[in-house]
């Protein structure tokens, strides 16, 4: 019966006529659903965009670190080997590779120009370390390097970008919290609106009971109206929200630090879920409210 209710509610429009077609509560419900859907689209976009952002930043970091080995001329080779050995046995290190001369030159060019006499200089050797999953324990590695290759210094310079990823993750969390809040507030508002519509229609319910209408008949009429209203409102809000985001000045042109707020590919399916969800919330809320009100009458 409960399961069949939804189907019946949607397919059986005849009972509808007995409930006043519109009114202020109807408008309130539709508008509330629309406004909340609009906000939800924004929160969703924020959440998805920051999620993308965090991912991109994380992958751009490529999880690299550098070990710099500087030692008196004769010891460089030994220390380099020792450092590589340490790295090989360090959990979390995916690979470690000594940079060749050309690479070092490229790295230093911004500072010294292209004509640097690398071979005559006491330039340290650099080992590029690629981290695996999970990352390396920087402090432990530092201690081991100090013991085995005193001339080797770990520079997990990439760590400076970590906070960016954390920040993006926090923003995504914030977006999700906003979505949950918005969904909860919407559910509560629709419930209250349904209650106030039922209260305002006390006369309708009394008349219907008087002429022998069953509870399910009365509930169906209200449930159907509210479900449709919530759905229509949420749909309108979603469309407006998506349109607003689509017409937002494109962020990509403002520098690619922040990806655009829009939806990409399969993400477009997310806003599509808003209206059906609102309808389900309205269905459940109205149904519960209707049977509660009806049971309070004889």
């Amino acid at each position, binding site marked *: 019966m409960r399961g069949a209710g939804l189907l019946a509610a949607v397919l059986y429009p005849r009972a509808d006529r007995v409930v006043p077609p519109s009114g202020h509560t109807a408008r309130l419900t539709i508008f509330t659903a629309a406004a909340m859907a609009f906000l939800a689209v924004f929160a969703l976009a924020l959440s998805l965009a920051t999620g993308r952002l965090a991912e991109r930043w994380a992958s751009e970091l490529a999880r690299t670190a550098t070990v710099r080995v500087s030692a008196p001329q004769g010891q460089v080779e030994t220390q380099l080997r020792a450092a590589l050995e340490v790295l090989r046995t360090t959990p979390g290190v995916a690979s470690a590779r000594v940079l060749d001369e050309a690479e070092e030159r490229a790295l230093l060019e911004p500072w010294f120009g292209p004509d640097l006499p690398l071979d005559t200089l006491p330039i340290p050797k650099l080992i590029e370390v690629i981290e695996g999953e999970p990352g390396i324990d920087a402090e432990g590695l530092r201690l081991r390097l100090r013991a085995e290759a005193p001339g080797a210094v770990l520079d997990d310079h990439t760590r400076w970008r970590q906070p960016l990823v954390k920040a993006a993750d926090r923003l995504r969390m914030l977006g999700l919290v906003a979505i949950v809040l918005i969904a909860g507030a919407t559910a509560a508002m629709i419930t209250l609106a349904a209650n106030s519509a039922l209260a305002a229609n006390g006369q309708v319910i009394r008349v219907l*009971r008087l002429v*022998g209408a069953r509870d399910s008949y009365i509930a169906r009429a209200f449930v159907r109206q509210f479900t449709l209203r919530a759905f229509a409102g949420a749909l309108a809000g979603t469309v407006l929200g998506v349109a607003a985001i689509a017409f937002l000045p494109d962020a990509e042109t403002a520098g690619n630090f922040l990806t655009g707020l829009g939806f990409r590919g399969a993400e477009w399916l997310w806003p599509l879920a808003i209206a059906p969800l609102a309808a389900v919330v309205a269905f459940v809320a109205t149904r519960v409210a209707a049977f509660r009100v009806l049971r309070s009458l*004889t």
Partner: protein
Amino acid sequence: MIELKDVSYGYGGSDLLSGVSLSLQPGSFHFLTGPSGSGKTTFLRLCYLDLMATAGRVELFGQPARKMTRDDIAHARRRIGVVHQDCQFLDHLPVSQNVALPLEVAGRPENPADLEELLAWVGLAERADALPPELSGGERQRAALARAVIMSPDVVLADEPTGNVDWEMSLRLLSLLVELNRMGKAILIATHDLNLIRAAKKQVSARVLRIRDRQLQLAGADL
């Protein structure tokens, strides 16, 4: 068809009715009188289970009220036509649809000719498309009576159905109820209008009940 045995009822405080019994049989015609506030409306509400007796037994069409589910009650009400003292309607539907509402709710087909005839009889043919808030007081009562009898129910319970209509119309409505009574329906009318009771007594053998001292008494020969 409706049976009350030793029924008591009170709204929270002391009992308004106590140890009241009545049996509405097919073809019976009852009037219910008593001073304002004596409990006539309350008694009618006990009969169609709008109120549940605090003591005693109520039976509807052979079923004990205590054992009836909410759906049972809804179904039983389709066999009882009720005219409320304050007639309430679905204010957004025209009079004709309001009168036909019991058919709609029961899923029965409505016969437009029957509906028209009924509306004409209660003098609402010209107001069939009006909305209930646009009706006059008497028109509302007539619409309520039409709604109560459209299903040709086994029992008609009418609470002061002629309080707002002129004498000619009262007789007209009475004759409608008398007609139904002759078809074997049970009729119970709560009213203050002694003239109406006298007029009815000329047409059918009506019993007049009076609520006095929380009891239901048979009224004397003065009526």
